[in-house]
């Protein structure tokens, strides 16, 4: 299928709508979830709190956008957009089901990582542009974190790509259809003959940790560590500037969950091969998002060196070893 | 007993035997009615200000065991004795004796020990020129206490590394705990 301008526009519009709706209601879900975990109700007035996100949105939009004195105005304004836009672009290539995919690209995996790398740039520019010391410190932290977790994440993805022989997300998900025994997370795959991949659970674990870190979620939320750096890179942002960062964060969470679902959990496939479809996909990503929320409200924050040590000293060696071993196994079987 | 050791050390430190009054602890008997207290107060009013020396106090009545008053010049030596005996600095404060035109600086010391011994060191300086050597070289913790005392009383701690207002605003030029302070 050719990429025409028209359906590109439609795709982007739908992606923005999906991302925005997700961001708004994931905030509510997060707050309700946090409430449950902390034995309190959370926002619950007005239809179980369902009117809370629009109210928040209106509040954010009607606030004045303050630009701190001495800030680099251009970068300060560009950064939130840069945080949000690539996240939306990534939605274009995510297959929600066998039929619902805006543009199935052969380099889909690569595209998501390419756009994810904008996230680091956005944080960097936000922190630097606001001319706030907390912002700059947070930017440096967040970027070193993003860079160091991109490495094991990509290495882990390579194992998947080696197994499936494609970078097309749609194909990767299709290969796992049929039932949960075909999913990449499990050590045994029977989709086309018997295949032994004993290291896949490790890959999954690495990928899961990395996607937590890449989305700057607790316990890896060092970029906005509020007890140290006030609010990190978005200390100076209010109004919709903050709103865009917020939406970008949740859009990234959705993308991270979608990627995990597609790469490891069989995409839109039913665990028992029945009625595959978009509902299974949504169920899986929301379960994953719930686990993100659960983790966030359970663990304290790590330290920046603890975080970097985890990446460089543990995850990268393990993922490299994993890669070599998987390659070896592929060669043998 | 650490109390006796310290007392002896202070007695050795203050070489001038004349000002030392080994008062039998008068206040120790204060466990009686308020009327007695009034009497005592009436007696005390005629007393001259306290002279330098070591005083052993009843802990139950005063909350401390040894009360030493000395000249500012002898302060460092006295604090060193306490430092050697593992005392820690509780606090430093001042008292404005405006009638006697003197500022008193009070140092509280105690020990992390079951051999309890609280020591109070007092030293008095003239009100118009209150200069006392700093003990922050011996006890770094005295830094803040001395700054606070400087804030409130204007006592100058000679040799203090950073004698600027701590609790008061940084441009404060008044000393609120002086008795002639008018807000």
């Amino acid at each position, binding site marked *: 299928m050719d990429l025409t301008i028209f359906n590109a526009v439609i795709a982007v519009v739908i992606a923005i709508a999906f991302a925005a709706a997700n961001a708004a209601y994931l905030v509510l879900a997060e707050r309700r979830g946090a409430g449950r975990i902390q034995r309190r109700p959370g926002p619950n007035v007005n239809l179980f709190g369902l009117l809370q996100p629009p109210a928040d949105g209106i509040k954010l939009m009607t606030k004045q956008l303050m630009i701190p004195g001495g800030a680099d105005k251009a970068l300060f304004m560009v950064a939130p957009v840069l945080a949000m836009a690539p996240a939306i672009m990534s939605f274009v290539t995510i297959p929600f089901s066998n039929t619902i995919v805006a543009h199935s690209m052969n380099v889909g995996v690569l595209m998501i990582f390419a756009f994810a790398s904008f996230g680091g740039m956005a944080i960097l520019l936000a922190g630097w542009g606001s001319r706030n010391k907390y912002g700059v410190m947070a930017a440096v932290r967040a970027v070193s974190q993003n860079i160091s977790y991109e490495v094991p994440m990509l290495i882990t993805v390579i194992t998947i790509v080696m197994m499936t022989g494609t970078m097309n997300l749609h194909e990767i998900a299709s290969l796992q259809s049929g039932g949960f025994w075909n999913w990449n997370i499990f050590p045994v795959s029977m989709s086309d003959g018997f295949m032994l991949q004993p290291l896949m659970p490790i890959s999954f674990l690495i990928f899961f940790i990395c996607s937590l870190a890449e989305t700057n979620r607790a316990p890896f939320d060092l970029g906005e560590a509020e007890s*140290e750096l006030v609010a990190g890179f978005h200390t100076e942002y209010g109004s919709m500037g903050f709103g865009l960062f917020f939406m970008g964060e949740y859009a990234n969470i959705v993308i991270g969950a979608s990627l995990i679902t597609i790469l490891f959990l069989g995409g839109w496939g039913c665990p028992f091969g029945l009625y595959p479809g978009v509902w299974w996909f949504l169920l899986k990503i929301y379960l994953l998002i719930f686990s993100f929320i659960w983790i966030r409200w359970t663990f304290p924050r790590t330290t920046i060196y603890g975080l970097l040590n985890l990446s460089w000293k543990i995850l990268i060696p393990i993922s490299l070893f994993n890669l070599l071993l998987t390659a070896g196994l592929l060669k043998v079987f | 007993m650490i109390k006796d050791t310290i007392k002896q050390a202070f007695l050795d430190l203050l070489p001038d035997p004349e000002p030392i009054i080994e008062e039998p602890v008068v206040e120790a008997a204060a466990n009686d009615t308020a009327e007695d207290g009034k009497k005592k107060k009436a007696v005390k009013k005629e007393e001259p200000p306290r002279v330098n020396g070591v005083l052993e106090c009843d802990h139950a009545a005063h909350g401390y065991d040894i009360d030493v008053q000395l000249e500012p010049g002898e302060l460092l030596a006295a604090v060193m004795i306490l430092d050697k005996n593992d005392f820690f600095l509780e606090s430093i404060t001042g008292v404005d004796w405006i009638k006697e035109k003197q500022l008193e600086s009070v140092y509280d010391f105690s020990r992390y020990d079951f051999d309890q011994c609280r020591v109070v060191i007092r030293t008095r300086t003239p009100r118009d020129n209150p200069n006392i050597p700093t003990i922050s070289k011996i006890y770094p913790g005295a830094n803040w206490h001395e700054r606070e005392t400087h804030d409130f009383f204007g006592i100058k701690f000679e040799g203090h590394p950073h004698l600027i207002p701590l609790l008061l605003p940084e441009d404060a030029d008044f000393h609120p705990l002086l008795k002639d302070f008018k807000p």
Partner: protein
Amino acid sequence: MSGPIHIRSDETFTLNVGPQHPATHGVLRVKMEMDGEYIVKAETVLGYIHRMHELMGENRTYPQVLPNLSRLDYLGAMGYTHAHVLAIERAASIEVPERAEYIRVLMVELNRISSHLFWFGAFVMDLGGFTPLMYAIEDREHILDLMEAVTGSRLTYCYFRFGGLYNDVDDDFINATRAVIPRLRKSLKKYDALVTGNIIFRKRLEGIGPISAEMCRKYGATGPVARGAGLDFDVRKNEPYSVYSEFDFDIPVYHECDSLARYNVRMDEMEQSLRIIEQALDKLPEGPIMPKKKPKLIKPPKGDYYQAVETARGSFGIRIVSDGTKNAYRFKLRSPTYSNMSLFDEACEGMMIMDALAMMGSLDLVIPEIDR
């Protein structure tokens, strides 16, 4: 990170942590000279909520000052008023009925637990874990309800009177307190499982923020900070006041000198306080709560009086220099966190900011109490 850190002083920048900063729990400002994430030099700036309680103490009569004391520390107010009434009772030689003494200890220990519970939540929040705060506040709520029923207030108590108490406890209170104790024990176990064993939590505290015994001595640090440095010092044991000598309780001491040791001390202290409360409830004698001959006007005889108590934060002292009138001639408050905080400047040098703020959390700061 372990190992010595080589710091170049020529490329530092100044970071103002506070006066409005989430980690300082109030208006405290630390001017930090930073080299990247490392602190080269720190200078604490105080006085943002300095209210000159000492001058108020000189301008008001002794009973009028009593409510001021509970405004020092909004978390553990009971201990501070306790110090005041003890000091006046010592100075003016007022007898206290035994029942009142027991109830005082009961209240102070309940308040100590509620203070430690709040600290626990706030400390874990400093480390980025928000949930334990909610659990701690929920448990603290039970204690506050208990105390509200008797004292009439939830935070800034003015319950003690010179010679006794404002209000007697009834059977409802005693039964409710007995019911709360097992609940709190259960909660403490839960916190242990939820937080103490958490690997991230331990990694952030173990070996971080060393405060040695010698440093404590030089700076006059007391309370859990000193006990976390292996110093067996607690005014309740070392210099028993009130009826503390009647109770059987231990002073938790840890020798690791790190933030985790200070955490452990406080968590163990809650258990010890529970023990004291149980014993106080068992031993609670019958009788009046105010002395028979209550002096109408408090006029301590001329002299200099010092009273130290162990509050939730450490050794709190009141020095009253009396000139025989109804006002104090000099009213000095020795607050424990003032001394505990003063060592922060030295202790945090060369640390990373996140570790330094974790250490600051482990000092259990209440800013109004530092500034007085």
